[in-house]
Each structure stands twice: as structure tokens, then as C-alpha cells.
């Protein structure tokens, strides 16, 4: 840890973040410091070009980090904020775990059985290009509760990636491993358990990590579209709804708080996966 703190890489990283925050703070306050005359010609120009008058894209419209921090501290004590965390986490994990439970066996079946591949793969490939968010209305109609609808959409986000990775991983196992196992007297079941499963594990880890990222993207959008899936407006609708609600309510600082919260949540879940992945594939660190 001490070594890490004294390494140039750490200080470069820290400096990068500090400079970013400082620039952001300066940019956000720039409107107060600069005379309105400074912006006038630009506004004229945009107006002349047919854009909305009196509107200039400028970082000054974005809340400053200091304001965001204040809003964050205020929101930390509210149970609604934590309820949003819980709801989004719950949906992500629900969809993601379902995607693993269904996607891994399905991918393996496609890889080992020509019959399964022949029956399952064409339908899979037809459905795969449909973006998960295009499923939102159909999903809300199909599932009895909005909660299930959102979980189903996050499930779709991770499912395709996991299946494709498992299938590709199992297919790319070197034929020599099969031949060696066969020579040494392995049955088909042994080969599945001792060659195909461990051989596919690295791809399962990669597929899950990518799938987890997509899951977060999808859950936020699904929450915004579906209005949070909650009966009580504004309370416990998930982090995506938290952002949307802050926008509607005009609390711009809270929008950024929600954005950063999602970043943190995504990072935490990826770390968790990475840790699990390292634990499941200890031989890869040998490379």
C-alpha cells in the first residue's frame, strides 16, 4: 500500500482527477465572473444561425462540483437515496444472475451439441440485434409488474453477451486438450467437466464483466422510461429514476449526484466480478 502511494502512477492518476475537478469548478463559476457582454456576440451568432435565441452551450449551465458535493451530503441522510441504490442494485443483480443461470448453460449447450445449435442458434441470432431498450413497452405489457419488466430488460442486456462469449470460448478450446483427455481414457462427461468447463471459464468471466457493464446502462434507461417502476412517485425508483426525478424537480446538483452514484455502483459491481473472476481462474495470473 505504501509502495502504491509513493508510485508515480498513483500521483499521475490523482493529479488527473484533481485537475479535472478544478477545471470543472472554474468552468461552472465562469458565468458569475464573466461579463454578460462577453457572451452576447456568440448568442447573436447562434440566433442568426437559426438556433434557440439566448441559449449558449456552456459549462456554466452545469452545477459546480462544490455544489454537487453539498447536495450529495444532504441526500446521504435521506432514505429515498439509499432506496434508489438498493432498487437499482436489486434489478441489476436480479437480471444479471438470471442471465448467468440461463446464459451459461445455453451457451454451453450450443457449443457442445449440434442439435441444440441447430435449433437454438437461429432464433437467438434473430433476437440478438434487437436492443434491450426496444423491449421496454413489450416487456411492460408482458410482465405482471413493472419490477419484473425492468429485471427482464436488464437480463436481456447481459444475456446475449454471456451466451456469445461462452459459445466462442468453448469453441476455441484447442483440439489438443480434447485429444489428450480422450487418449487418457476420459468419457464424454469427463471431457465436458474437466476440459470444456474449465476451458470456457475465462470467457465466462469476460462475458460476465462486459454483460455487467451493459446491465447498468440498461437499468438506468429502463428506470427512466418506465417511471421507476414504483407506485410512490419519487421514492425508491432506482438511481435512473433518481436522476430523472431530479431533472423534473429542477435540482440540477442532484442529477450529477445520481450520475456519480451510478458510476460508483457500476465500478463496485465490476470490481466484485473481477475479484470473483480472479478467484475462479487462478491459472491466468501465471501468464
Amino acid at each position: 500500500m505504501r509502495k502504491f502511494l509513493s508510485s508515480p502512477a498513483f500521483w499521475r492518476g490523482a493529479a488527473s482527477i484533481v485537475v479535472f475537478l478544478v477545471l470543472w469548478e472554474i468552468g461552472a463559476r465562469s458565468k458569475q465572473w464573466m461579463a454578460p457582454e462577453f457572451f452576447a456576440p456568440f448568442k447573436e451568432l447562434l440566433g442568426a444561425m437559426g438556433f434557440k435565441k439566448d441559449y449558449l452551450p456552456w459549462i456554466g449551465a452545469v452545477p459546480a462540483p462544490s455544489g454537487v458535493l453539498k447536495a450529495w451530503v444532504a441526500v446521504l441522510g435521506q432514505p429515498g437515496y439509499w432506496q434508489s441504490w438498493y432498487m437499482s442494485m436489486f434489478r441489476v443483480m436480479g437480471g444479471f444472475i438470471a442471465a448467468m443461470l440461463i446464459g451459461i448453460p445455453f451457451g454451453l449447450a450450443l457449443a457442445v451439441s449440434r442439435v441444440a445449435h441447430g435449433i437454438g442458434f437461429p432464433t437467438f441470432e434473430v433476437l440478438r440485434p434487437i436492443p434491450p431498450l426496444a423491449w421496454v413497452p413489450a416487456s411492460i405489457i408482458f410482465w405482471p409488474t413493472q419490477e419484473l419488466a425492468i429485471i427482464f430488460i436488464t437480463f436481456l442486456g447481459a444475456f446475449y453477451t454471456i451466451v456469445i462469449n461462452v459459445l466462442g470460448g468453448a469453441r476455441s478450446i484447442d483440439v489438443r486438450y480434447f485429444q489428450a483427455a480422450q487418449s487418457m481414457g476420459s468419457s464424454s462427461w469427463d471431457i465436458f467437466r474437466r476440459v470444456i468447463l474449465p476451458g470456457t471459464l475465462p470467457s465466462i468471466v469476460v462475458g460476465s464483466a462486459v454483460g455487467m457493464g451493459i446491465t447498468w446502462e440498461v437499468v438506468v434507461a429502463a428506470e427512466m422510461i418506465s417511471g421507476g417502476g414504483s407506485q410512490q412517485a419519487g421514492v425508491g425508483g432506482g438511481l435512473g429514476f433518481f436522476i430523472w426525478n431530479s431533472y423534473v424537480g429542477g435540482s440540477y446538483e442532484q442529477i450529477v449526484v445520481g450520475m456519480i452514484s451510478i458510476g460508483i455502483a457500476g465500478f463496485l459491481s465490476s470490481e466484485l466480478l473481477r475479484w470473483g473472476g480472479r478467484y475462479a481462474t487462478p491459472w491466468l495470473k501465471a501468464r
Partner: protein
Amino acid sequence: MSRGHIVIEDVVKVYDPEGAAVMAVDHCSLEIEAGEICMIVGPSGCGKTTLLNAIAGFHDITSGRITMDGEVLCSNEKPKSTPGPDRIVVFQNGALFPWKSNLENVIFGPVMQGKLERKEALEKGRAMMTDAGVSGVEHNYPGEVSSGMRRRVEIVRALMNDPKALLLDEPYRALDSLTKSVMHEALLEIYYKNKVTIFFITHDLEEAIFLGHRVAIMTTRPCKPKKVLNVDIPHPRDYSVLTSKRFRELIEETNDAVHEEALKAFQAGEKEG
């Protein structure tokens, strides 16, 4: 006692008999004595691996017959032999399971076949690894040790199956020449302790003469023996053989034949490209 006496009779292998038929092996006959080190020398892509795959049971043959100790492995009636622990292949780029530790790799065969209990297998595996000079890496993954070590572990894994024959497909190809010479001596040492038939494919003439009782020089595609050389340098051998007069003479005797085939293979390759 005959153990690992392999007879290859008139074997033909044609790839894709319907379309553009490519003859990989052409009426090849070769007898490998029990407990012999038989070296197969030929240029890359000459069809020698096809022959090894036919013995191992990874590919079928078009016609002919291969027997081991009188038992038919493959023939016209049964073109593909069944892979089994009596003939273990050591692959060109190695095929240790990267997800198993070296020791777990070594005990794979006997445990799979139910020949040994796990505990007995672990004991035997450790003893054989020590014997082969690879003790101390039992609990490492193959990816954590040098490629020379990996090859030795793989040979130990093969021997744990108590095979009649070892089929080696250019196992030292990727190694540098210094590691190679160490590996050659190590292989001979292992061989002197466990007399098994060794069917060893290479394109390195010096390696072939240093290791083999006999060296079969193959013609390039289609593959069949062009010349079979008896290496009359007595075993046990060590690296001093490499500088002996007889070794040089044998190389001179065969160099032309090998070079001729290499040239043919090269020109054939040019035509294809």
C-alpha cells in the same frame, strides 16, 4: 515380451477423396520394434503427423492396416483406431491443461481410468516427477514454469498411463537449441528407466540420430519411408555422442537424402503459393 511393437502396413491416407484429392501418406510400411526409439524425419508438412494421428486414433486412414502387439488398431474395416492410454501423444506445442497444476495434470490419466486412487496417484506422480527432475513445481500451473519443464511434465503425464508407446510430435520444436540438448538427455534418461516404444517425429536430423535406434527418412507428400538408417551408436548415450566420429559419419550418410526431400517440399510449396 512384445510391448509396443507397432506394424504399419501399406497405409494410405487421402484427404478429401471426393474433391481435390491430396495424398498425404502413400503405401507406407514401417515396423517399429518393441521398446525401440524410432525417429521419423521429414520436412514440415510431409504427412508424418498424419501417420502419428492414425496410430493415436485422432484421424482415420484410407486403406492399409496398423497393428500394435498383434492387435489391429485400424484397418480397411475399421479406418479409425480408438484413442487409448496405451498410446499417448506428446504434442508439438504441449497439451498440459493450463487450468490444472502440474501434479494434477500428471495424475489425470490414472485417475480418469480408475487405475489408481487419487492418493496413490498423487504419491506416484510426485515420485515420477522427482525422477524426471521436475520436483518443486508440483503445485505450479504449467503457465508458471519454463517450456522445457512443461515438456518434461507432459512426458511424465504420458508415462503415468503406463503406455506401450509414446508418440511424440516434434515436442522440442519450439525450444532453443541449448534447452533442446538438455531435453534430449532428459528424455533418454527417462527412456532408460521406462522402456517404452518411442515414435518420435522431427525435422531435425541431428536430433533424430542422437536419440534414435533407427531413423526413418520420409519422402515429402505423399509420405513414405525413403531410407531407414540403423544408428549403430550404443545406448546409453549422452551429449558427447554429438562430437563423435560415427555421429558425423551418419549425418553425412543421410544429409543428402534429407536435403533432397526438403528441397522438394520447398519447391512444392512454391507452386502452391
